């Protein structure tokens, strides 16, 4: 039988890979992928514990909400990335260092 601990260990590894991607990558789209990996690690935990809640389905329902939230976040983030590219001609987060026009 698969225990909760196995799911949590996989979730920790995914989260750490996400942190690594966010800190090391030089491209806003890859940073966004790192954020999605971290979100997915959290959703995996919700789902793994949702297995134990048949009456209320708390974990699984909130996993669904988290997936929808991730979709909304991505849409806004990609709109911002497109705008930044239009203005600075680059999407390297290190090079975008001024707030004025």
């Amino acid at each position: 039988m698969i225990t909760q601990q196995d799911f949590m260990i996989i979730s920790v590894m995914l989260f750490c890979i996400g942190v690594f991607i966010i800190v090391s990558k030089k491209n806003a789209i890859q940073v966004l992928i790192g954020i999605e990996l971290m979100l997915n690690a959290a959703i995996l935990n919700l789902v793994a514990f949702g297995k134990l809640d048949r009456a209320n389905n708390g974990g699984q329902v909130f996993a669904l909400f988290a997936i929808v939230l991730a979709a909304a976040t991505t849409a806004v983030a990609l709109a911002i990335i497109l705008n930044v590219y239009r203005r600075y001609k680059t999407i390297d987060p290190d090079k975008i260092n001024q707030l004025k026009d």
Partner: protein
Amino acid sequence: MSMIKILFYLMAFITLGSALVVAAGKNLVRSIFMFFVTLFGLAGLYVLALADFVAVTQIVIYVGGILVLILFAFMLSGKEALDKVEVQKNKFISLSNAPAFFLAGLFAVIMLNVIFKAHVDQLPWVIESVKAGNTMPIDGTGINKIGVNLMTRYLLPFEVISILLMVALVGAAHLSRREGANQV
């Protein structure tokens, strides 16, 4: 070793392996498509956690929506910017990645420590739930309960999240509008 255990390890290997390829890859397109594989592996893990509906939603929303959006932004953000990204020496193990390694490693140590110290399989409510037979059924009837709960117990979060989604999409459409095209 039972079949479910083998499948679990296979899915875990696919998920973590492709996530590592995303982290190590220098090519942006390749890392986006490996992210696709990661999402499928995660959907498999959700099925093994008896959450088939969440798994299908994951595939529909992530693969059908988010990944297409990411590819779209990638194509709109120009070739020359991407060439520069590929030119930089992005080796997996290099000095410039040392802080990232350090941070990720520390996070892993802390969280694994917490998990092993917490004994998540012996938590009181977990034992109680297993004893009371409150675990998800394996025959696929759990989805009925999800539908009923979504429309009764979780109706308020459901409505709030629908409003939030609408606001976010309107905001995204406004943000990505071309400037100077009949602005007020």
